[in-house]
């Protein structure tokens, strides 16, 4: 019983970071149909900039803000100098550009920072909280809470404001969006900027638990992407549901089935879900008619 509880805690807290990464994907996808493979670099920048600023004596909250700012600026630069010049290119072309950007950002980060692993102090201590024989780190609750807060804000913006609708409209039909007066360039810049911020927050929140280095993001991004698809691409709530579901799956598989093949179990379940629900758990059904 306490064993099950431990697996559930493990699945829902630390791994809530998948949800955060998935959210970052979702936002850019929502605006442009593009899977941003540079998303993982935002996560990396969030962690690394905070670590280096903190080490240089900047107080932790300020260091975190600085990291978010760096990631936002990186997102904006990525949009301005890599995505915008290729305006009108197909989604696949843009995706390859984000792959190039990912390699570029990481290459530069390896020079600016170093290739070591780093950590940050936990925000509210290391003392584990014990519940019914299972234990959670306080920082894990930060991750979960952060994910909840971010998704709430994002959901409100996307579903309840005209700006959010403009983002979705831009992805749905770029030509029509321009014809109703949406500055699609601005919308995309917004998406990349905010996505950078979300990525950085994910990086900052998890670094005290999972540590960081310039190569930390790759697998995280892969799982974030899978989580986004499991939840149903384009839906912020789906991203979170997908992220938590993937986390839970992984930890239950590691706990009860096989730690060697826990990722395999997770992916098999994703395949099974997509087989039944080709649009993911909460994805919007196709709406095109002939």
């Amino acid at each position, binding site marked *: 019983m306490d064993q099950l509880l431990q697996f559930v805690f*493990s699945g829902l807290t630390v791994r809530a970071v998948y949800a955060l990464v998935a959210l970052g994907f979702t936002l850019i996808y929502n605006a442009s149909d593009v899977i941003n493979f540079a998303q993982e670099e935002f996560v990396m920048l969030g962690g690394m900039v905070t670590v280096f600023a903190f080490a240089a004596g900047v107080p932790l909250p300020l260091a975190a803000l600085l990291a978010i700012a760096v990631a936002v600026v990186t997102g904006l630069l990525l949009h301005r100098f890599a995505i915008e010049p290729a305006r009108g290119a197909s989604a696949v072309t843009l995706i390859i550009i984000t792959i190039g950007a990912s390699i570029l950002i990481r290459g530069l980060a390896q020079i600016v920072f170093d*290739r*070591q692993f780093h950590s940050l102090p936990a925000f509210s201590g290391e003392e584990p909280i014990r519940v019914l024989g299972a234990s959670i*780190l306080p920082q894990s609750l930060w991750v979960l809470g952060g994910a909840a807060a971010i998704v709430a804000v994002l959901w409100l913006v996307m579903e309840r404001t005209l700006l959010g609708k403009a983002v979705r409209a831009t992805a749905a039909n770029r030509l029509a969006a321009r014809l109703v007066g949406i500055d699609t360039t601005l919308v995309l810049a917004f998406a990349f900027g905010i996505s950078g911020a979300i990525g950085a927050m994910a990086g900052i929140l998890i670094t005290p638990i999972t540590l960081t280095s310039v190569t*930390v993001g790759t697998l995280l991004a892969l799982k974030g992407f899978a989580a986004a698809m499991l939840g149903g691409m384009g839906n912020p709530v789906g991203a979170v549901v997908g992220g938590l579901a993937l986390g839970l799956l992984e930890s239950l598989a590691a706990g009860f089935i096989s730690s060697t093949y826990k990722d395999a179990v997770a992916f098999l379940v994703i395949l099974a879900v997509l087989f039944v629900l080709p649009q993911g758990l909460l994805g919007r059904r196709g709406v095109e008619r002939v």
Partner: protein
Amino acid sequence: QAPIRIGSVLSVTGPASFLGDPEARTLRLYIDRINQSGGVLGRRLELVLYDDGGDANRARTFATRLVEDDRVVAIVGGTTTGTSLAMIPVFEEARLPFISLAGGIEIIEPVKPFTFKTPHTDKMACEKIFDDLRKRGLTRVGLISGTGGFGASMRTQCLRVAPAFGITIAADERYGPGDTDMTPQLTRIRNVQGGVQAVVNADFGQGPAIVTRNFAQLGMGVPLYQSHGVASRSFIELAGPAAEGLRLPAAALLVAEQLPDNDPQKPVVMAYKQLYESTQNQPVSTFGGHAFDGLMILVEAIKRAGSTDGARIRDAIRQTRGFIGTGGVVNMSETDHMGLDLSAFRMIEIRNGTWRLLD
């Protein structure tokens, strides 16, 4: 006169970069030093270094490039066991001495004519740990390893040698690269039928730090052992207070200051440590030390051979006796292309946030 070209292929970037990076720094640092003091055989040394990013296929391509294009006389490199194994046939065919910096025992067993290595093998790490466990009277062990190259091959070795030490591996759990939370695996180990008396973690990188923290979080209440894969200052920082009391086998370099003054390794490791830390602005790790050892063994062999001919250098390397490196005292032979024994490993405990030499 033309410089003597020494080749190297390291995983300077990618998942093993924190091994490859100090290795590359060490090679550059010492080749400069050697050149400043007049080179070898009156000739300058030139380092040709490629970054394989941890990819075995790329490593093999660079190996070919070193042989055919750069025409190096010998190679010091190969950060991981996988990249080393991929390169070996190239160097063997070209009959060029190759000193690998990776831990896997497959590199030198069976012995290949031109292949050597400097780090202790993962098998030795298992033996050293099991030896310590036996002394403490602990026999039921939970093993948790990363699925990366280092972790996977050390796991294999530990499973293989455990019976010889009377150790039972009661639990065998694994985690993937980039995993952020190992509490499910550790919970399983804790709850295994019959319980465990100690846990051994085989891996390098951030995995062991997370395992150590999760271990404390869960209050496992048994001793934790890590491998020599965590033998760098940053591990203690990363693992934090959770690391208190854990043990690991490692090279003397890690506890340079604590070595008794009569320890033959002391001057060597102190000198390396001081030079590295003063020039590189980062703490030493034993990984850079392996590169130092490899380079020095090679340079002395070239001097002894008085030639840059591959076969002659190889013969000279084989005759290395009593070489004192950061990893231990090296005695090579026709049948032993590493030349270290278990005494090269020191058992170390973390206490008060720093390494403490135990034996």
